[in-house]
């Protein structure tokens, strides 16, 4: 069987690329290492263009829009629930801080504006500022103009807020610890940094992308499932593939367990860039190989499930009582230890109850399940955690690993030095938590 293209990984990005290639007439084989898809990875904004182009609505795509979208315990008892309706949230906040309630609508509006700038950036390949190509320079100028037209405040906000720490940003706006804690958690989401670290405001905005104003948790969906239902590509599961290349050209993949070789002139990998490229080091120039091995993807999250007797009422339950709480949780991770008091978030989605525990650096996790159980007021045997792995996003979303620096500085257009080998996963622009975006960008770059 001759294939025109092999895509490694049947996650949202891999399948997206595969479908775009298939619609362009290519015969595509998708090779996925796991037998079953991992639904917990379907988190984040699915760009409208992907839904439209691939007909995902017809394939049963469902995007969850829970209301309230977050529930956080209050120190004196009771909970704070934030709604998709800004005024309802204001009401809820008013009970703990009238000052914060008054600022809430403005805050949501400002963040939405900034997120919309990112959204515009994310559905296209990153700007190439080093090029002399007139069209690209015009595009960049156009982008600059678009931002400027959003107003002086937006330009200043972008310059100021992106490098800021989320703690500083939130301290400027709000006083309530619980509110700042649950918002701050989004700033450190899947990041090995505390809320006082620079660049966490960017991470916050990144995950706000695609959300309605006033909603600060990425949406859950069944996008991978929907993509699987769309016909047009062949998917082979349970086989881990490694790229084959010779003399600077990709020749296909080899399936590690069976040793079977499948040839194709085009290989697109949605696997982490490091895992894809380092085995090919001999084909790479050492400076590039060094840049690849310098990609930071330090996993700090243990994910798992909760076995509860009945489905909980909340959509998302967040244990992040203050910014200091999060900062202390990070302190432990700096020295390679699990947080004594971790940030825990529980999410009810699609019949499952998922739990996110941060900070849990790689390694052994003695007593972690117990601590989590204690925080959630459940029994330890109800908590099932997987150990932390390399970052879900194949590359931390820090300011030095985004846009034209992602995955490797200068190689942000999904190509690699190996002809015929492309990258399309969350390790590329725009990064993790935006399922399908990288896949689409990569596909358009290839075609």
């Amino acid at each position: 069987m001759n294939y025109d293209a092999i895509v490694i990984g049947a996650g949202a990005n891999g399948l997206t690329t595969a479908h775009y290639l298939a619609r362009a007439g290519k015969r595509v084989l998708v090779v996925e290492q796991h037998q079953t898809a991992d639904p917990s990875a379907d988190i984040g904004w699915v760009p409208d263009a992907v839904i439209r182009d691939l007909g995902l609505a017809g394939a049963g795509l469902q995007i969850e829009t829970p209301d309230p979208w977050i529930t956080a315990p209050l120190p004196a008892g009771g909970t704070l629930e934030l709604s998709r309706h800004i005024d309802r949230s204001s009401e809820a906040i008013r009970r703990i801080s009238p000052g914060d309630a008054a600022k809430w609508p403005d805050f949501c509006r400002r963040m939405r504006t900034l997120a919309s700038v990112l959204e515009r950036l994310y559905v296209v390949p990153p700007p190439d500022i080093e090029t002399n190509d007139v069209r690209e320079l015009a595009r960049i100028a156009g982008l600059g103009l678009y931002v400027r037209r959003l107003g002086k405040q937006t330009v200043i906000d972008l310059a100021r807020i992106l490098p800021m720490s989320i703690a500083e940003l939130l301290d400027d706006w709000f006083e309530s610890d619980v509110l700042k804690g649950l918002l701050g958690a989004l700033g450190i989401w899947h990041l090995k940094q505390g809320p006082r670290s620079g660049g966490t405001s960017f991470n916050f905005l990144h995950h706000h992308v695609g959300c309605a104003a006033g909603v600060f948790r990425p949406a859950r969906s069944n996008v991978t499932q929907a993509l699987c239902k769309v016909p047009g590509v062949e998917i082979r599961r349970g086989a881990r593939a490694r790229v084959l290349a010779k003399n600077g050209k990709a020749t296909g993949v080899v399936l590690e367990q069976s040793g079977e070789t499948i040839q194709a002139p085009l290989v697109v990998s949605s696997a982490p860039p490091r895992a894809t490229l380092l085995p090919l080091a001999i084909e790479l120039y050492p400076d590039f190989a060094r840049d690849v091995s310098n990609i930071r993807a330090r996993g700090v999250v243990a994910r798992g499930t909760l076995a509860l007797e009945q489905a909980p009422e909340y959509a998302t339950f967040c244990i992040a009582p203050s910014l200091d709480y999060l900062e202390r949780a990070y302190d432990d991770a700096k020295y390679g230890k699990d947080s004594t008091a971790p940030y825990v978030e529980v999410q009810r989605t699609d019949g499952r109850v998922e739990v996110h525990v941060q900070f849990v650096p790689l390694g052994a996790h003695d007593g972690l399940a117990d601590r989590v159980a204690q925080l959630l007021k459940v029994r330890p045997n109800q908590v099932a955690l997987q150990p932390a792995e390399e970052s879900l996003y194949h590359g931390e979303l820090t300011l030095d690993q985004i846009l034209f620096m992602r995955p490797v500085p200068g190689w942000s257009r999904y190509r690699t030095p190996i002809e015929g080998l492309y990258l399309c996963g969350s390790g590329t622009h725009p990064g993790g938590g935006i399922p399908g975006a990288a896949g689409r960008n990569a596909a358009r770059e290839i075609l």
Partner: protein
Amino acid sequence: MSLRTTPFHPRTGPLSEGQAWRRWAGYVVASSYELSHEREYHAIRNSAALFDVSPLYKYLVTGKDAARLLDHVVTRNVAKARVGQVLYTPWCDNEGKQIDDGTISVLGDQTYRMTSADPTLRWLHLNASGLDVKIQDVSESTAALSLQGPCSREILQLAAERDLASLKYFRLTSAKIRGIPVTISRTGYTGDLGYEVWVDAAQAVPLWDALAETGAPYGITPAGMLALDVARIEAGLLLIEVDYFSSRHALIESQKSSPLELGLGWTIATDKERYNGQAALDAERKRGPAWQFTGLTVDWDSLEQLYADVGLPPRLPSQAWRTSVPIYDRGGRKQLGYATSGGWSPLLKRYMALAHLGSEHAKPGTEVRMEVTVEHRRRQAKAHVTALPFFNPERKRA
């Protein structure tokens, strides 16, 4: 803490008559032992000169993928080299610009010793990703001497107590000198009959003694870097940081050179798989390099006239120089390039220089002008492009 001394220093130290030392790779080595380097130079061409070349960086590369690593890094074809062969080779960056040059000695099937002018351990490691290879820095543990000159073979044969006539040019063999295990390679930096002797640093002093004693009746002369400089210019051999800059040290693009621009096109293998800089070098070879590295011979009469004009006899440089000297066309106005090394050859009785000229002007015989400062004024002497090397005796390869 200060500069370190080589393993031969217990012998070379006391020989210095004028305390004329210089730095080489963090070591002190002699510029000359005697008060003038003249006799030391003549020993190279007349009897035998003994140089301490221990400061060279040396790396032992072993393992299944040793050849593969080296082939990835350098331009010569290492896999095709036979045990006992020595390769002179440059290596390049991804744009085909030269990083450094050195030798690779094929000591065994999976054992290579690489020398370089600059530290290269990190570069080797960076290129070795995913390869089954071991890289050891043996710079400090291996000492080396260079014995160059018409009597070098006889001296070495006596010292090693074996025949060396069959040791061909750029080949190596192992031997024992007074029981000390050594590697002898027929290599050197003088373009003459000569050998380099590689020994474990702990045995450096006895080796020196052995050679010094054996060579005494043949006029063996410890020689320093000043003498070596003259000989290497005669041989047309380039020196890093003088005749070219490592692309990794270059501050601007124009400071970089490709091997083709340095006359090293012959070291670029055409039958190899991927190596650093291959694509760029292939492209450059097709369109032709922009620069050539050539010799220049300064016209004596022209030079003499410049001095006569101010009433002086001609002044020849007492030592080889290592500065950049502009080279102009016949008309004296358009700059064609620059010379980077030069000096008087006492043997050839010529004022010679090594220069970089734009390719269109580099044909041997082309007449040019070389800048000379005479009595504080910039003047120009006639010179013509000469093919390298200036000196190439039969005995070098015999």
